[in-house]
């Protein structure tokens, strides 16, 4: 079977002929334009509403988030342990650590290092990113320990994976996250895993993914911080330490 050779369709105008311009806009075109303008107007109006709300709530949200953060830090490092202005004594390791660690706050007492409070992140939670905040007690060589850990933001399934947040943990006596307190900072990275994966840490049946993500992220964050703790304490406040822990650039606020 063969197709007949295609002949130019007489109904179609040649390609270069100008399309006939209607004297008046067709009703369909008018309707489409009206709808388009209507949608654009609504989009503009509601975007303005959202932008306005964002603008008037921004400062309050920032203050509330900072307050919440300080409350979390208080839970893992009591204020009696340090005497410097902790939130101001901050360096940002987000770039230098390749995302393993975020901001680091240095706790000092009488100028001497007491503890490092650092943010770390797991991107592989069941509900996406999990943000953690942990305190590392600085003691003599080889004796530093994890002081405490809290989840500062997560989207794990309510009632299932959200036990990583002690406020949601049903076991109030022994919250899951408490098992990290007192762990030696020199624990090999391979053991920073849940028992199911051959590591040292417990998990709750049915929601292993959340526990696994938190445990691994903590291990990596802690290893980065612990390996360069002296340099991190020495960096000027507001610096961005590089991969070696040395300062590369000051933070522009």
């Amino acid at each position, binding site marked *: 079977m063969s197709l007949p050779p295609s002949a130019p369709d007489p109904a179609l105008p040649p390609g270069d002929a100008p399309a006939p311009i209607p004297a008046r806009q067709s009703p369909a075109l008018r*309707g489409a334009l*009206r*709808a388009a303008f*209507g*949608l654009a107007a*609504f*989009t503009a109006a*509601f*975007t303005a*509403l*959202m932008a306005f*709300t*964002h603008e*008037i*709530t921004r400062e*309050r*949200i920032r203050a*509330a988030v900072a*307050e*919440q953060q300080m409350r979390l830090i208080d839970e893992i490092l009591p204020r009696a342990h340090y005497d410097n202005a902790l939130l101001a004594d901050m360096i940002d390791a987000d770039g230098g650590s390749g995302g393993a660690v975020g901001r680091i706050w240095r706790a000092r007492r009488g100028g001497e290092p007491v503890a490092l409070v650092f943010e770390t992140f797991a991107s592989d939670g069941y509900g996406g990113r999990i943000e953690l905040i942990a305190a590392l007690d600085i003691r003599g060589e080889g004796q530093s320990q994890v002081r405490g850990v809290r989840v500062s933001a997560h*989207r794990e*399934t*309510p*009632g*299932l994976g959200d036990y990583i947040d002690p*406020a*949601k943990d*049903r076991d109030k006596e022994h919250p899951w996250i408490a098992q990290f307190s007192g762990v030696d900072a020199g624990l090999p990275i391979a053991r920073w895993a849940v028992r199911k994966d051959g590591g040292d840490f417990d998990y709750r*049946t*049915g929601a292993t993914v959340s526990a696994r993500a938190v445990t691994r992220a903590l291990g990596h964050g802690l290893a980065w911080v612990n390996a360069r703790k002296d340099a991190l304490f020495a960096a000027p406040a507001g610096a961005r330490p590089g991969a070696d822990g040395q300062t590369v650039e000051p933070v522009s606020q």
Partner: protein
Amino acid sequence: MNLQRLKESARNGLWRQNPGLAQILGLCPILAISTSMVNAVSLGIATVLAMALSNLAVAGLRRWIAYEIRIPVFILIIAALVTVLDLAFNAFLHSLYLVLGIFIPLITTNCIVLARAEAYAAKNSVLDSTLDGIMMGLGLVWVLALLGALRELIGGGTLFSGIDMIFPGLAPLNVLGGDYPGFLLILLPPGAFFTLGILIAGYNAINARRAARQAAATSPPASASAP
């Protein structure tokens, strides 16, 4: 607003057209969040707010919404209002936001909000529409509360877990005792379907029995006509 319309609206939202049991709309957040009673009711309350606001806005603006583009405009309105609600909670009720926060964006995905905008608010007055939004939301709240309570009780043996996040003085109830082994399946997504299915079956049974009784009352029973 007369009392009759209020009653009608309440009856529709809470029972006859209940979003969870009769319209079976908005399953995504219902199934995801109903693992505990406190979570479920929290989402329900946030939904009531969002539905009241979105119905109010849609009914108020309906004269200017061209028919062909009404659905995108409704979605735009709902998404914008949910964003505003999210920001406002975050700024002004931060401790409540820490509990409700993760649920608020989910409301946008709840098709009951869009369904009521399209089926009711686009055709009715501002006041009636707002009321409809509140009543439909409350209808969802009680179904969510029951679903959450059942799943939490069967799945974990507790009730009101997480209540201390909202009311710091209160403690959850450990109904079935500390050594209750738990029933994980009920807490997982399939458990949500099972439990909701049982609730819908119960709802249909009650309606069927009611209809049968009504039919019996209106038509004289066959035995009564015999001498």
